[in-house]
């Protein structure tokens, strides 16, 4: 099983689109440097992914692992934000459909989800995304709070945005993603009926 997983990571690294210069051969975790090609100690590193061509990321320390589609057992009666449960090396981990959480339309049929497993206070959670990107390093000077034009549901889970050369990078706040998922007991129960 360990080997399988590495394979997946391999795949996902290659699948990730290459946007930045310095496209060296992948070894260990790829590092891409944005804009000013400088490594600073206070540069932040993010593991990135795509949803509907929006470029998101979470702090790299929060990420446990990433992999391709995995068999998800759906949970009947659970709200659509909960895609189901997966077996992660013997641990049962909840899969959260990030599209639903962020207010995007549901995944079109035929598009398989990829998994980004993050560590939270309550254990690991598997976020389902469209595509996995590379690990990037960004300079804090590029950071800005979420613009007013952004949909409030989306804005509520963002730490902020980074203005990169060619695109906007949206930094997710993992706590906000999982906590504010509106999955209090009452909500689940009312959705049941």
């Amino acid at each position, binding site marked *: 099983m360990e080997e399988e997983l590495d394979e997946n990571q391999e795949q996902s690294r290659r699948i990730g689109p290459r946007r930045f210069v310095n496209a060296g051969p992948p070894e260990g975790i790829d590092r891409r440097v944005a804009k000013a090609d400088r490594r600073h100690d206070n540069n932040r590193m993010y593991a990135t992914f795509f949803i509907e061509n929006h470029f998101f990321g979470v702090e790299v320390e929060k990420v446990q692992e990433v992999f391709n589609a995995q068999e998800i057992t759906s949970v009947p009666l659970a709200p659509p934000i909960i895609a189901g*449960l997966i077996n992660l090396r013997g641990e049962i981990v909840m899969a959260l459909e990030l599209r639903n959480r962020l207010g995007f339309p549901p995944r079109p049929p035929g598009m398989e989800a990829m998994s980004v497993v993050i560590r939270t206070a309550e254990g690991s959670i598997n976020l389902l995304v469209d595509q996995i990107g590379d690990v990037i390093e960004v300079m804090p000077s590029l950071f800005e709070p979420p613009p007013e034009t952004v949909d409030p549901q989306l804005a509520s889970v963002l730490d902020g945005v980074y203005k990169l050369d060619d695109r906007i990078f949206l930094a997710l706040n993992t706590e906000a993603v999982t906590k504010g998922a509106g*999955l209090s007991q009452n909500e689940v129960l009312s959705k*049941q009926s």
Partner: protein
Amino acid sequence: MDEQESILREFLVECAEGIGRLDQEFVALEKEPTNSALLASIFRTIHTIKGTCGFLGLPKLENVAHGAENILVRMRDKKMTVTPEGITLLLEAVDAIKAILAHIESTLKEPDQSYDAIRQKLDAFLAEKGAAPSPPTPEAPRKKGNGKGKEKAASPAPPSAAPPSPPAPPTEPPPPASPDGGKEEAKQKEGNDGGAASTSKGLSATESTIRVDVGLLDKLMNLVSELVLVRNQLLQRVRERDNAADTSIVQRMNLITTQLQESVTRTRMQPIRNVWNQFPRVVRDLAHSNGKEVELVMEGAETELDKTLLEAIKDPLTHIVRNAIDHGIEMPDVRRARGKDPKGILFLKAYHEGGQINIEMRDDGGGIDVEKVKRKALEKGLISAEAVAGLSESEAMNLIFLPGLSTADKVTHVSGRGVGMDVVRTNIEKISGTIEVESQLGQGTRLKLKIPLTLAIIPALMVRAGRELFAIPQANLVELVRVDTDTGERIETIHGAEFYRLRGELLPLVRLTRILRLPEAPAPEKTEGRFEAEGTNIVVLGTGGQSFGLVVDEVSDREEIVVKPLNRHLKGLNVFAGATILGNGTVALILDVPGIAETGGLHHLADGSELKLEEKVEAVDQGMQETLLLFSLSGQDRYAIPLSLVTRLEEFKTSRVEHAAGREVVQYRGDLLPLIWLDRVIGSGSADEKGETLHAIIFSRNKKSVGLVVGEILDTVQEEVLLHPAPAGKIGVRGSLVIQGLTTDFLDVEQIIESVEPGWLQEEAHVG
């Protein structure tokens, strides 16, 4: 944890062991005031506590313990007699000691309040009953304390937390210090004591046990659970490959894993005595305060169960015991008047059976007055009058589990507030247990608890619904039934609810695909009414004394599964009890049987209407009693058809009747429902068809429905269908019988429909 704290914690653990025995020992001493072994054991415990306090700097605790010790010395030296009064006071001191210890446990310090009062009380008692209190000998205890402390500090592996094996019973009193100390220490203590030395006994007790941290045992248990999962996976793969060499290796591994699992499970088992040992005191105190006489008999105290389960049943059992004394057992004079022994008996029994722990509580008190319970339930609006009328004896008994119900005339400290039995049941069900009650007015009450041996790994039955696999805990499984249409068994539908006649009783059915709102798997047509698809699998489940049938698509294997709790976000779904990983690596959800019952609408007692339906239909199928629907067409005539044929009853506005393809129809549930006026077919044709509304009996077959228009629905009855044959040639009438004193025609619905629309019965529904 620094050294000081660790020493303190060890002290607390040792005290806990000794104190835990004290309650029981004191109560036993009360019954046997001259038992010197008991006295010696009690004395030793108090003495040790007092001694160690000095070293640890716990003056308040030392003070109280010292006061108690003074009295005990007198008693032990036979200079004071052991009296109930004395024991009560000493028990007070024990309570104070417990309180201080509890405070120390959470804060590592003594409480702020003063405990001088109890010490003064003890001294006063001593002065009254015996000679002047002897001054404490500061040297000896200190020395002991030091010696002990040193030993502890030096010991390489600090022993900790609860012992895995049961604490020794009172008749075999090992000195509290010995379980972790060395021989030297025990001897030292014993020598100074001059009390009944059981050094050698203590030694053998020391050598055969070891103290293990509970956290470590939990970890072991988790690891074993993981191993079981992996073993399941491995087993599955190897079975598929069918390689002889691999198979034999895996078989061996399988054997070892099973034994490992059993052994680790056993390490966490503790005898129920650990919970029961406080009951003698509880019973004594409660009986005294109520002015009653109660004898407690406990059988099976050595029965073991998992530590966590033990903790979970502690409160419920305590409540039950209190209830029995507060409300069950009568006052001595009342008992005498009833011809009973003035002393009531409370009997506790525990034993293993069928992979579960059974705990019985029996009292020979006044029993539960079922009528009173019903009245109270009605008064408090917990149930409707109709529902009450339809209750069976046992169902009425189960009313005591309703929240807010208490028939106590007197509210005591804990019982009588009506918050008891429902909480008890909830707590028992939380650990996948069940509770049943039986009672006879004037004779007594019996409560029976059944609790699984362990929660982590359970045997389960895998079932399929809508192509997904689900696990049902074996504990809730009663039996498996397969309904085949050819054998003539049927699933009956009444007013939309399905039932299956199982050995004469109607079993309410719940469809798993419907409960979980799953898309129905492609299967042969499912219709309502009389005709079922080829084969139906019913899993009969039990919960809280009630059974119901769960209809599933397929029944798969039995598997041993590791129960993993659901994520916080999913805990709100009451139909699931947890999740597990199957042998093939996929995740499967574990069904929560009470949750399924509730979602399926089977909590009758709350919903009066459900019960009403059931009460009407509850067939105690003796002979050929059938439930019939009675109706009239023109007002004077009476007709009957089997209720089992009826899909539902409807009312339509006459204005909604339309004409289509030469028939009269009404728009109904998105389709056109053809109508047949029964009066025109078999009646006198004189019925008034001009009313504003018409009543129709919906009959369905092959996904089609037809509405049989009648005049008036009269009633449903249960009757033995013995027909006088109908005159030949009368279509649609099978015969007649007398119902409620009036002649009633028993109809053949199919013949009627056939006569109006030939071929309708055989036709398949057109795909609309």
